[in-house]
């Protein structure tokens, strides 16, 4: 810090601080298996009061399989924040995520590419 208190009112810093209060300051997840197109789904409905508001918001967004990018858009939170909150929910068995897709290039087999191509042609 520069020691100048006005830095806190710097508009560059302004709204950015708040979302990370949801994550209690955590900006990174330990797991590296969550990316913007990782699919997640809520495993069970929870009973009110178990979770804080931010986690509930995330859980509400993934009642059906959905990408993390869509969860972030739905919850109106930055991707990084959503990943932290989702990793909490995954650890507590509220949410399941698609495993085994470490390298999406591995998933893009000729067969997969052909299916995508056909799908695009059918649009």
């Amino acid at each position, binding site marked *: 810090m520069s020691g100048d208190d006005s830095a806190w009112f710097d508009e560059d810093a302004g709204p950015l601080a708040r979302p990370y209060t949801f994550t209690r300051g955590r900006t990174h997840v330990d797991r590296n298996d969550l*990316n*913007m197109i990782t699919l997640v789904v809520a495993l069970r409905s929870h009973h009110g009061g178990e979770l804080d508001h931010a986690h509930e918001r995330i859980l509400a967004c993934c009642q059906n*399989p959905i990408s993390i990018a*869509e969860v*972030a858009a739905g919850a109106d939170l*930055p991707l*990084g924040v959503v990943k932290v909150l989702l990793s909490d929910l995954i650890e507590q068995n509220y949410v399941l995520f698609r495993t085994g897709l470490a390298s999406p290039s591995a998933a*893009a087999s000729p067969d997969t590419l*052909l299916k*995508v191509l056909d799908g695009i042609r059918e649009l």
Partner: protein
Amino acid sequence: MEYVSSDRMIRPAINATALKILIAGGFGVGKTTMVGSVSEIEPLRTEEQLTERSAGVDDVTGVERKRTTTVALDFGRITINTELILYLFGTPGQDRFWFMWDELAQGALGAIVLADTRRLASCFAAIDFFEERQVPFVVGVNCFDGSQAYTVDEVRAALDVDPFVPVLLCDVRQRASTKEVLTALLEHIMSITGHGRARRAVVDR
């Protein structure tokens, strides 16, 4: 705008494979329009907060603290079937910071670089980005008003892309046109992967 498929809202399975294609180019070139022209959902927006790693940018001011910048992406979705979902991400045009977004390129199937012949230079950075990261890409030259002042060959020469990189004219407002560009990209990816990986072709330049 109508979106592609209110009649085909397929619910993906949790074990579905999700893939992504990036759409990059200068500010106002039509990236989000392109996403919307084929997406089954109205384009959504997601944000990431990136920390500028280099202190160099601020050196002149003597301020070396890290800056956090919010970078937004507009994206759409095409559910191919319950097992295969394609996401199209439009990278932010004006913001130089998206080039630091490592996750963006990681695992991307490929990319479309949208070019505007009035401001060709605005897509150079995107081309460099994908070349460096060995992401296969095609160039779509968006013809805004139907008139095309330059030929594909002229654009290709001006952009100095490799001869094997497809360059196409397109109108991103038209679903059919966007489909053509996506098709060209998929065929390009398949031709590259059929003869070794894209990275090899890039290294051999």
